[in-house]
């Protein structure tokens, strides 16, 4: 056993956003993330899925240091990110990179591909002279499949397709050899036929450089593809909590938590016979409770088809039900 601390560890993380209630009302809190634990080692793939508003982006942004946690701890190589020395903090910011959803707004329209990619290289002292920069940027472009690089070096974002732009964004993220990339819906804005290409590119970097990923998506097919091919985990979020986490194919084909079961039964599949034969697990209610006051007990009890009295009173803990497959549900613990 190695004694080295994990690359990233999150303990009982909470992120509450204050919101005003009316003109005279006091402040209420949106509990976007409400008690999350996770561990990421080098080369790990951790995929977060869940309905809109369940807290995926907030969790991701908090881990990469863009949002300040309300409670709990985020440890980078064993040290709380809020207590890092200046040097350690710089190392953390360099080693943890971000890919946003929108390849259109995440590139500066007035800068060429070369300028965009040179910036981090200069900033982190990876290359300085123009010759070195051109060489290194060209290498990055080849790596992300923009070939021949000469054709792309001096293009502006508007001269690139969505898929090509997202490749530039990926090149920027990997230019500093990060240990972890947080990718928030990186393929949502990409043409359907090109999505797998971007995912394969990210997976290739995992293989070559042992890059770890925190991958966020609302698309279960994409989550499955990425986590299954990368040998990683899928975690399902509901109202600020992880309710199930496990190996990709286990979560998709043999889900434990009632919420995951409902989701899997609802997703259409590209096979007319299968898709129509699927038996939908009916929810008690379609409405997601407000994250400002989530239901007491198990947060899913207002919609869960299997809820029992205990579910309204006590919150179920996340327990290992099968090997490496965890769920937070009273059906599996007492």
């Amino acid at each position: 056993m190695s004694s080295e601390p994990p690359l990233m560890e999150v303990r009982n993380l909470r992120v509450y956003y204050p919101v005003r209630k009316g003109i005279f009302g006091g402040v209420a809190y949106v509990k976007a993330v409400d008690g999350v634990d996770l561990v990421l080692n080098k080369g790990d793939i951790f995929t977060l899925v869940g309905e809109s508003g369940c807290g995926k982006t907030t969790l991701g942004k908090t881990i990469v240091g863009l949002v300040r946690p309300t409670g709990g701890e985020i440890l980078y190589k064993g040290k709380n990110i809020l207590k890092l020395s200046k040097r350690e903090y710089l190392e953390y910011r360099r080693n943890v990179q971000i890919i946003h959803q929108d390849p259109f707004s995440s590139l500066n329209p007035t800068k060429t591909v070369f300028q965009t990619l040179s910036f981090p290289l200069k900033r982190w002292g990876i290359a300085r002279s123009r010759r070195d920069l051109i060489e290194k940027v060209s290498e990055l472009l080849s790596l992300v499949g923009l070939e021949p690089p000469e054709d792309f070096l001096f293009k502006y974002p508007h001269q690139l397709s969505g898929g090509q732009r997202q490749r530039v964004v990926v090149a920027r993220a990997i230019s500093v050899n990060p240990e972890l990339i947080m990718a928030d819906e990186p393929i949502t804005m990409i043409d359907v036929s090109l999505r797998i290409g971007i995912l394969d590119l990210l997976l290739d970097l995992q293989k070559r450089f042992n890059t770890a990923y925190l991958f966020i998506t609302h698309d279960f097919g994409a989550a499955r593809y990425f986590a299954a091919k990368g040998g990683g985990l899928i975690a399902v979020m509901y109202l600020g909590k992880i309710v199930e986490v496990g190996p990709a194919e286990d979560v998709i084909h043999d889900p434990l938590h009632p919420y995951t079961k409902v989701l899997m039964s609802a997703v259409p599949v590209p096979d007319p016979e299968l898709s129509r034969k699927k038996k939908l697990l009916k929810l008690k209610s379609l409405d997601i409770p407000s994250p400002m006051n989530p239901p007491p007990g198990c947060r899913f009890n207002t919609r869960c088809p299997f809820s029992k009295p205990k579910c309204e009173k006590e919150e179920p803990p996340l327990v290992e039900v099968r090997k490496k497959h965890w769920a937070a549900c009273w059906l599996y613990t007492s």
Partner: protein
Amino acid sequence: MPRNLLEVRSLRVLYKVHRGDVKAVDNVDLSVREGEILGVVGESGSGKSTLALAILRLLPKTARIANGHIYYKGEVDLAHSPENKLKEVRWKEISLIPQAALNALNPTLKIVDHFLETARAHGVHDRKWVIERASKLLSLLRLEPDRVLKSYPHELSGGMKQRVLIALAMLLEPTMLILDEPTTALDVLTQRFILDLLKDLHAKTNITMMFITHDIAVIADIADRMAVMYAGKVMEVGDVYTVFKEPKHPYSIALMKSIPSLTGSVEEMRSIPGTLPDLVNPPPGCRFWPRCPHAMDICKKEEPPTVELKPGHLVSCWLHARR
């Protein structure tokens, strides 16, 4: 066999841009049969919305129908009808729920006023009839009519707004509904609910539907027949069971493999190499040849003919042309 309610023939729609004309829909033939759900699937930019807007002649000013016909009930050619004739067809015969219509509801109008306004704009002034019909439709779509009619759009969730739009489109008892990406902006569970509602609605009213989406799994779930579009062209048409089981067009085959889905082996999924063509200067011949693994010389020069492989299964590809 049910008759064709709508027949699109050799349709060509161009958008004027500074570089030239975007050939958004190019020489498209497509029929919609009475009482069916026709799925139209294609990637972003393949011309689906343009086709929908052209059918009701709701294209923006920069667009023009350069060629072709759109026959409705075998009589009217919508492509060449005057505005007053189109007014009789829109909403009363064919209703369109445009893409991204969720944000198109007027935020200052209560839902009930949306129904009344729509009716008034089409010459229906009987307030009582409108409210009764609206309530009936809303209940059919499992919404509480009283509460919803009194609400403002911002008080409703995305799924509720989508259902209001469907009810609104059905207000004047049209024969056909065109739904452009009706579930794209919705969560999985809301999408499932809307899909099941539409199936239920279809079973109860036998209304004809053209259902447009970029999500091939949604087509598998809801449509009777499907058309696959790519770069302004229809590549393959057939009943969904046939096309999913035995896709014949190289693009349909590649598209199906490129979807990361919950079924099938992840090892067999792969993206389509290359990128979508520029529709101002599309490649000559077959528009898919720059990305097609089977491209032959003739594909790069001549447009492939459409052949009927089995009754109702149409493919536009040189591989299947009898030469």
